[in-house]
């Protein structure tokens, strides 16, 4: 009943209900995104009281205007965001892979205990740690220092993203143990098994980790807001909020232009890896 292929039966009001509901839902779900895209091309007088997605008069100037709206060009903010996201990806992939290998493939004392703690940290909200971490990183001279991104990146180097450790543990459990055993018989140490067996086979898990790390870091706002105080060091999401507290109605077009650009990388990932992202969510329960 549930998996019967539709379309072979004659059209009845009942069989039409599903596609109609789905199309309505699609319109509802996509409208805010399309409206944002359209509005980023609208002239100021068109933006208020206008529910239409398409602009009457195309105003591509919003993009250069938004780009140069503040003293620091928006490109700078995107570069900062890209740098933070790229370093986070590298840090997460390396450190979480090492921890996952230990949890999934090696036997050592207290493994179960540490694993339980790791699962516990999965549910620990970042808001609980933000104050003491801020105090600590500030005492290291990292906050407001010459390179204020240290507090944003160093925790990832230390495998604190338990989600990814968990994801990779789940993945590695699926790699046949016989491969390890065979390698051992050939004289491999746990280190060479990691290097020559598990690492090459873990590529799919690494790709998922890399993509989700990038998207979440790119979208992250809370930590970047807390740690970045120098205008030229802002990342794109923090810089976007400058539009809220500064200007009046005239900057709405440029604001949406920059908003569209800030979502573009995530959207491109979505288009390129849609299948993988959806499967990543349903196999591990990762939150989007």
């Amino acid at each position, binding site marked *: 009943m549930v998996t019967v292929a539709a379309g072979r039966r004659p059209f009845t009001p009942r069989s039409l209900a599903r596609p109609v509901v789905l199309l309505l*839902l699609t319109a509802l779900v996509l409208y805010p995104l399309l409206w944002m895209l359209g509005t980023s091309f609208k002239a100021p007088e068109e933006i208020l009281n206008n529910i239409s997605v398409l602009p009457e008069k195309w105003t591509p100037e919003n993009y250069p205007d938004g780009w140069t709206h503040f003293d620091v060009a928006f490109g700078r903010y995107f570069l900062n965001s890209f740098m933070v996201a790229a370093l986070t990806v590298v840090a997460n992939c390396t450190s979480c892979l090492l921890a996952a290998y230990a949890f999934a493939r090696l036997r050592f004392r207290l493994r179960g205990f540490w694993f339980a703690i790791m699962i516990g940290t999965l549910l*620990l909200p970042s*808001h609980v740690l933000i104050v003491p971490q801020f105090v600590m990183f500030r005492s290291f001279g990292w906050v407001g220092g010459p390179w204020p991104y240290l507090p944003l990146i160093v925790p990832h180097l230390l495998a604190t993203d338990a989600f990814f450790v968990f994801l990779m543990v789940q993945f590695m459990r699926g790699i046949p143990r016989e491969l390890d055993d065979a390698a051992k018989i050939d004289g491999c140490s746990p280190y060479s098994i990691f290097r020559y067996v598990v690492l090459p086979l873990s590529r799919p898990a690494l790709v998922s980790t890399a993509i989700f790390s990038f998207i979440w870091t790119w979208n992250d706002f809370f930590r970047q807001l807390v740690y970045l105080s120098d205008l030229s060091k802002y990342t794109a999401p923090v810089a976007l909020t400058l539009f809220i507290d500064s200007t009046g109605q005239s900057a709405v077009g440029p604001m949406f232009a920059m908003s569209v650009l800030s979502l573009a990388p995530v959207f491109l990932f979505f288009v390129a890896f849609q299948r993988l992202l959806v499967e990543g969510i349903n196999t591990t329960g990762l939150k989007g």
Partner: protein
Amino acid sequence: MAVGTRPTSHRPQSGPAAVQRRGRSARDRGDGRAGYVFLTPWLLGLMAVTAIPMLMSLYLSFTNYDILTPWSDVEWIGLKNYQRMFTADPAYWHAVKVTLVFAFIATPLKLGSALGVALLLNRSFRGSGLFRGLFYLPSLLGGSVALAMVWHSLFDRGGSVNAVLGWFGIEGKAWVNDPSTALGTLILLAVWQFGAPMVIFLAGLKQVPNELYEAAEVDGAGSFRKFLSVTLPMLSPVIFFNLVLETIHGFQGFTSAFVLSGGTGGPVDSTLMYTLYLYIRGFANYEMGYASAMAWVFLITIGLVTAVLFRTGRFWVHYSDGDD
């Protein structure tokens, strides 16, 4: 079990059992140290970025630390922060209320939409994968600042929501600036991002054995009856999983509240989410001690809520026999 057999040659001699035995004994020798070598970054992170800060925050919550005065002047003030929080800070209780309302309204609505749409998409038809992807997109864009800005405009006085209401002769208002409706717009934003739990529901629906539906049909069950007696019980572990995750997630809403209210939690504190208030106390007013106390109460509350969910889950979560 002959655990003590040592391999005398590098070649397996008597089939898979022997290989396995040899593998295990070899593993026992080298793994212990290697395990901790590979675990080192994680252990360091656990200590430096999680455990020590947690203890520090517990200590700070009993002090008047404000980050501006030097450590030597920091005073131990006992339970004063907690006392102030519970008895002398109306904004605190307001933040608690806003967060509870948000979490307990947005979560069921979001899960309900996710389940409803998952049921619609469960039948495979041409383009079902496309719909699945499209509905997932908003939750992937998640807590981004850009989305919150769009939401602000859609629900503003001249926004699209009012235009649509106008077609039906309903006069709109500035939903985002009205204390009685501002939180509602945040709830709708959260519900709109139903894609992630939907995908998990879809995976769960695939696991329901078709025979159960067939058996129910033989017994004369209609679609609603089948939903109640087959789908819901079989799906209950997935519903539970989503419920726990989304509830915890709901407690932490920050970005949209920050952006919609310009960082204030307004209008009239109506969107003052707990985490936003923690941010304001800690990072706008530099009351780090007070913010730490708030963080600990937050942690304990989330722990309690999770525990309660697990307790009640026993009564309605149905695990099929044999597998976990």
